[in-house]
């Protein structure tokens, strides 16, 4: 971007201009316009991410309650009181335990099944498009619509119990304290798997073909090749899947709200986010809800770091 104005007649003026533009360049970089173009985006990040995030932490440390709009109310600093209230509430412990149950079922199933289906799809010749589309149809559909089908399928006299006949659990799936959370985990696994299959499919394109060739020269069978070449080859994708599945688990709301009628039976399928909604907005304790949110995020980040350490490798 060389800007030399033609009417700059005197060299002195030109020098001054050059000096100014080079100073500007040193200060803002070669294309200061970049900053201008990013500004709307960065402002939005400030308004809908950064500020609310700080607000959430602030709220969790104060006695915050809903007041009439415009009213100037003093919010007392209460230190860790809200966190103590959260830590001594058995319902909160139950909800975090429920996410634990969710993750124990959802994560291994997601990783194993989506890797298997992606590997099979990658080698398939016929009906590739049909298969790929049918795998991601649940992913692109609204949770609310899919929950409706599962409610129908897993209801007391529903198709699943009809097929199981005498083996049907009693009480039925969604009102059974031991089965409600596993059904939610299965639902989320089923709904999200199409996306993970696509991730693995992309990762499989990056596994060097030579590795498969040398594996087959060495006489490795299909199973051996899968475990020795494919699985390590897609490790970066696995790390990503682990991370995203954990975040999904921490964000559960729609499924316990609708599928098990508000986290029932007796809180057996409550999620922390559902609890945040109930405590914060239904019962009017936004400060306690914010404290749950802060704890939740710290836990997710910790788990993500541990996973990174365990699975190893970088995302790139």
């Amino acid at each position, binding site marked *: 971007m060389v800007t030399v104005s033609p009417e700059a007649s005197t060299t002195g003026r030109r020098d001054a201009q050059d000096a100014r533009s080079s100073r500007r360049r040193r200060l803002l970089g070669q294309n200061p316009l970049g900053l201008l173009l990013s500004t709307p985006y960065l402002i939005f990040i400030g308004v809908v991410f950064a500020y609310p995030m700080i607000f959430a932490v602030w709220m969790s440390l104060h006695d915050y309650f809903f007041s009439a709009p415009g009213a100037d109310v003093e919010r007392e600093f209460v230190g860790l009181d809200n966190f103590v209230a959260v830590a001594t509430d058995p319902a909160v412990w139950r909800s975090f335990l429920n996410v634990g149950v969710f993750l124990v079922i959802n994560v291994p199933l997601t990783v194993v099944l989506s890797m298997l*289906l992606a590997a099979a799809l990658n080698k398939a010749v016929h009906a590739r498009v049909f298969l790929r589309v049918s795998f991601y149809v649940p992913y692109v559909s609204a949770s609310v619509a899919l929950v409706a089908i599962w409610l129908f399928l897993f209801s007391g006299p529903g198709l699943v119990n009809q097929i199981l006949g005498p083996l049907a659990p009693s009480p039925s799936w969604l009102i059974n304290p031991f089965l409600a959370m596993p059904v939610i985990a299965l639902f989320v696994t089923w709904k999200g798997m199409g996306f993970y299959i696509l991730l693995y499919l992309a990762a499989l394109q990056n596994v060097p073909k030579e590795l498969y060739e040398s594996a087959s020269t060495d006489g490795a069978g299909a199973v051996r090749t899968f475990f020795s070449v494919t699985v390590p080859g897609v490790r970066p994708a696995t790390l990503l899947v682990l991370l995203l599945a954990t975040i999904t688990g921490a964000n559960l709301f729609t499924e316990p709200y609708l599928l098990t009628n508000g986290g029932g039976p007796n809180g057996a399928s409550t999620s922390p986010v559902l609890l945040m909604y109930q405590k914060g907005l239904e019962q009017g304790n936004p400060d306690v809800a914010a404290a749950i949110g802060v704890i939740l995020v710290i836990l997710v980040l910790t788990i993500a770091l541990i996973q990174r350490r365990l699975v190893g490798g970088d995302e790139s």
Partner: protein
Amino acid sequence: MSTSTRADARAQARAEKAAARTEVSHGSRWGAILRYTILGIGALVFLFPFYYMVIGSLQLKPDTSLAGAFPNPANITLQNYVEINERIGLLQGLVNSGIFTMGVILCTLLFGVLAGYALSVLHWRGRGVAFAIVLLVQIVPFQLLMIPLYVLIARDYGLSDSYLGMILPFAINSAAVLIFRQYFLQVPRALFDAARIDGASELRVLWSVALPLVRPALLTVILLTFIGPWNEFLWPFLITKEASMQPLAVSLANYISTVAASAANPYGAILAGAVVLAIPAVVLFIVFQRQFNSSDIGSGVKG
């Protein structure tokens, strides 16, 4: 360029297919049978509930036995659609969902293209920091922000029961920025420089040179963004209390959790609503399945 990338993609797909075919001829027949058995079971598991949803929505009386999955055509009726429409107003719900979704898509495209261009083609001080922020935003879960955003948008700004309030938290999308950045990075530098030497301003370069070259990215971002707001439940649920402002996902959910108990054939009406809610997204992704490919998703998540 856009046609050539598409041609490239097609050539690549053909090569993959050819490679797969040779591998099959090398591999055992049993391997292929096993592979298609797994894939077939997978497709059945993923598709059957959708089939069952449509069947259930067309039956006057729910038949939950296995035979009910293959209903007598005489039992088929659209009565459930009439019923759910009377209860929640399907058209109004679709319109609200549509406005919400369109608003989010427009904002995502506008801010995403500008930021993506600035983060890939232009060199400016602070670019590294800005890029780090874009990546960082992706790992902040919306749930941490739910309570403060509700306080800010619904109470402080008084935007509850408004489209603006629904759209605001979704107006920017880091995945879109990353996808645009990835595409802009692939455009040869010389094209931009040529336009600049011809005297085009930077905005002109973006509008007339860069954008037409990344048209596939536009479609990908529109598709990926669409499923966010169209399927979103939690945020519009928090912010809309008035039935006439609720997107279809919210009004259907409210019907499921409160009203359904009083209906004669609750599942029929619920499933009819579910069909109406699910169909736009499903049709869109079947029509544009070619544009929804795995590499874009990868760059959207990883950067």
